[in-house]
């Protein structure tokens, strides 16, 4: 069996801490990048241009309909073959890029859903006043949609914290990768429970914060 969980934690806590920060960092980059890209995809999905609409639909469905692990492997092993320019961002950058693309598909759905949740009468009233399409979106629709979008984005971040564990298999230094490090020290099972505990801690704390955010946003209704 070897040493106990507590002993391992006491001895190797800096490794786990670094892994935890890695996880938070990669999840944050993925969702932030995914939000910018996803907003663009959502606008394309809502666009009246049939070609743009269809392309964005395919994009979202492919990325949501295939496992992230497969996407990461394709990014890691295949993309550098066809796009040697990706060398610039390195293996790590390529994996992060895959996380961003994956997240963007989910965020696009979140934003599209948020926009669609706003009563069409709001847009009609704005346009009937002579507001431009742009002003209608920025001044009327988005400020109302954000109430639905923000908590969903926060939940996407929580989901991404768990998803990034897959990137650990591709040598990104995040929480799951600490298992690989410590396996070299003949610690086969202890790190798994520590890792699981840290994931659980992160998701519970963040879920609690999202609940409070939702409550605060609901007050203005």
């Amino acid at each position: 069996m070897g040493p106990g969980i507590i002993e391992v934690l006491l001895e190797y806590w800096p490794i786990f801490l670094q892994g935890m920060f890695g996880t938070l960092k990669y999840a944050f980059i993925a969702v932030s990048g995914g939000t910018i890209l996803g907003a663009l995809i959502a606008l394309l999905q809502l666009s009246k241009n049939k070609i743009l609409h269809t392309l964005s639909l395919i994009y979202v469905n492919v990325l949501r309909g295939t496992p992230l692990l497969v996407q990461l492997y394709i990014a890691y092993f295949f993309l550098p073959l066809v796009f040697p320019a990706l060398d610039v961002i390195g293996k790590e950058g390529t994996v992060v890029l895959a996380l961003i693309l994956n997240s963007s598909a989910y965020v696009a759905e979140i934003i599209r859903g948020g926009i669609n949740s706003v009563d069409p009468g709001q847009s009609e009233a704005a346009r009937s006043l002579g507001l431009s399409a742009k002003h209608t979106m920025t001044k009327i629709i988005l400020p109302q949609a954000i109430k639905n979008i923000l908590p969903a984005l926060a939940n996407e971040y929580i989901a991404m914290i768990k998803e990034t564990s897959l990137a650990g298999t591709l040598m990104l230094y995040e929480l799951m990768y600490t298992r690989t490090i410590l396996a070299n020290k003949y610690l086969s099972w202890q790190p798994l429970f520590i890792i699981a505990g840290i994931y659980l801690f992160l998701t519970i704390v963040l879920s609690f914060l999202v609940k409070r955010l939702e409550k605060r946003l609901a007050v203005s209704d």
Partner: protein
Amino acid sequence: MTDQKIPLIETKNLKKNFNDLEVLKGISETIYKGEVVSIIGPSGGGKSTFLRCLNLLEEPTSGEVIFEGNVLDAKSTDLDVHRQKIGMVFQQFNVFPHLTVLDNITLAPMLEKKVAEADAKAKAMELLKQVGLEDKANEYPRKLSGGQKQRLAIVRAMAMEPDVMLFDEPTSALDPEMVKGVLEVIKQLAETGMTCVIVTHEMNFAREISDRILFIDEGIIAEEGTPEEFFSNPKNERTKEFLSQVL
């Protein structure tokens, strides 16, 4: 109504389909400057669709909508500029819940007509006073009753200084005790000479304030006339049947 009739909104053979359903079957009609026109008729007959075509909230399937000489449904037309002169009031109020009463009114003039904030606010307060809402200026719409929301919606449209006001069943979503106050505001507006097109189920109101009644049924204007002619001496069979049910 002035003796000299100046056309304000004209439709030419206006048709509108929703998928296979032909809702408007070719309506050619002119609304003149200063006129108060009420549109009545059975539900599903096309009266709201007709009204919504006048500012192109519904895009006509074919035909033309001409506002102050401009063909609105031409591709080259800058619709936003013309819509600023066509106020619209909706059945469901559609006030902006995330903005205060005052901001609901000042938003469009400041954004699209570049009115200075102080001027927009002064004008908004004046309008709020006219409809008895000046003490609600800094409230959010959720604190307002249905009748107050609709009065807000009316002055929000008025703040753009439109040349015509379209009302789409403005009292249908109101509790009965709220109806009178809103009709009063519309009536005052009509008396200032504002051109008004009103889709309504309030027959007494239509009779009282209209210069002309349009009866729309099954996608066409089945009958039109002065309130006097229309209510006392309807000619069309469908009109007679409709009136016998609602009066």
